[in-house]
């Protein structure tokens, strides 16, 4: 659906040319939820804005829905933009218009529908985002979560194929963030809309994304399925992002447990095996003792996973490790240098 081919973006400043993006190659499939993470200034905002050409690439090719849009202008550009919805961190609603007028706004721009059809579409959209009774309210009267819902309804007005989310939940409290992410997941599931979102919170990615790209200094340092990046991050930048969501071993606890000897392992289980009584089976069959150092049992989108760091002590530690591997548990030895 969206293809970045060797995309680069530089712009002139007083201090010379600044490279915002360098050699980006990415492919986003139709119907998937694709995340882009990175620190501030990593280029993710710029990359997102290339998709609807709010920013233009200075190098490379950009393909959206089978068309090369790299040099698109004028009417063609406006048509492209009407197929792509966008929501923003600070909502960007028109304060002088009511909620219904805000949602209808994209529809009034291309004048394809009659007033009655517009009103109908607006009602449907407001119902879908859960704001049915607020059609005549003004944005100033709404909470942050409600404003973002209006933003989402507005972005969906033209029945787009792609939805761009620029840090859509960064200005919301955790509970509201959950609600909005659930709404986005629902929209993706029910309408099949491709969603590209940028965030600096890995937890957002964990909850809704299928695949993710990590950006640093204008380059993609790692990309792939969320489960892979989350559970087995390769690049140091990726590790840093994941670690904010998966705290590592507390050094004091680790020191205390070192006294007991044994092997320190990180176990990762995905999918149904999460529900197996892993540790008790291990103790019984292999006769080892397990001490948990840290752990998390959660979901990546719809995939349950568990990741545990533990210390195995006893004579049969190696046999235990083999048994685990045989049971499709990913074992990482943390104590070997």
């Amino acid at each position: 659906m969206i293809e970045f081919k060797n995309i680069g973006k530089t712009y002139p400043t007083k201090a010379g040319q600044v490279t915002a993006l360098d050699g980006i190659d990415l492919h986003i499939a139709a119907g998937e939820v694709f995340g882009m993470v990175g620190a501030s200034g990593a280029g993710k905002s710029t990359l997102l804005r290339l998709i609807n050409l709010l920013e233009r690439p200075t190098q490379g090719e950009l393909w959206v829905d089978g068309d090369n849009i790299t040099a698109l202008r004028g009417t063609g550009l406006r048509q492209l933009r009407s197929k792509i919805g966008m929501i923003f961190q600070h909502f960007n609603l028109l304060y002088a218009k009511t909620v219904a007028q805000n949602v209808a706004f994209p529809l009034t721009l291309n004048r394809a529908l009659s007033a009655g059809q517009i009103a109908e579409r607006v009602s449907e959209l407001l119902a879908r985002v859960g704001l049915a009774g607020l059609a005549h309210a003004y944005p100033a009267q709404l909470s942050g979560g409600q404003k973002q819902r209006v933003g989402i309804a507005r972005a969906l007005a033209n029945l787009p194929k792609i939805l761009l989310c620029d840090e859509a939940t960064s200005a919301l409290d955790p509970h509201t963030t959950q609600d909005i992410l659930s709404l986005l997941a629902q929209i993706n599931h029910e309408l099949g809309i491709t969603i590209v979102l940028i965030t600096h919170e890995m937890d957002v990615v964990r909850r809704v994304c299928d695949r993710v790209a990590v950006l640093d200094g204008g380059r993609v340092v790692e990309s792939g399925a969320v489960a892979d990046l989350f559970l087995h991050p390769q690049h140091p930048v990726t590790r840093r992002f994941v670690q904010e969501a998966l705290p590592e071993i507390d050094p004091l606890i680790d020191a205390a447990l070192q006294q007991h000897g044994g092997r320190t392992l990180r176990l990762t289980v995905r999918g149904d095996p999460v529900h197996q009584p892993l540790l008790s089976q291990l103790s019984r069959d292999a006769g080892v003792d397990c001490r948990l150092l840290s752990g998390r049992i959660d979901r990546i989108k719809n995939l349950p996973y568990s990741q545990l760091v533990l210390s195995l002590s006893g004579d049969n530690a190696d046999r235990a490790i083999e048994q685990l591997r045989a049971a499709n548990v990913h074992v990482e030895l943390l104590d070997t240098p």
Partner: protein
Amino acid sequence: MPTFWNLLDWPEITEAGLDSLAMLGGALCFILLLGLPLGIVLHLFARRQLLASARTYALLSFVVNIVRSVPFIILLILMMPLTTLLTGTAIGIKGVIPPLVAGGVPFFARLVESALREVDRGVVEAAQAMGATHLQIIWQVLLPEALPGLLAAATVTAIALVDYSAMSGAIGGGGLGDMAIRYGYQRYETEVMLVTVALLIVLVQALQIAGNRLVIHFTRR
């Protein structure tokens, strides 16, 4: 014994009052009509706005600044040939309106530019992302979102005009300010001056109150 009030030529004061209103009303109409587009154009070429162009903006700015730099009373006199060309006379109400417009347009345009700058650029970006044309953005986003600021700008301009119009006395323009200068300054008839100034105060207060009410009505934040 003749009282203070009997000393005053009320018919003349009334005529002056009506003249002032005519001057103000006439000039304000043209100022709003010409100043609004100028202000919009200035804003569009400003840094990081829709048509951002440092050179064009610098040029427009320069021209606007020059007109603003000229003291109004000098503008009145300098414009006399042009005024005669436009209205057939360089004195009276008709003679005052062109210079008032010339002085008021750059003034109002700058205030308009300032009011438009207050509109969150994110909202403009959102409109672009929806595929809006520049005209649609100006008409349906910038102007409605900036409306309270634009109304405040019009109010400030109207009140500044009251000040400017008082100087029209220098060319026999008529109006309350003219009367205040002629009777109060040139003839030392202080009562007349006081009364005309009092009426001007009432006028300015009324304009400000009306302006404030309009701004409040259109503010939906």
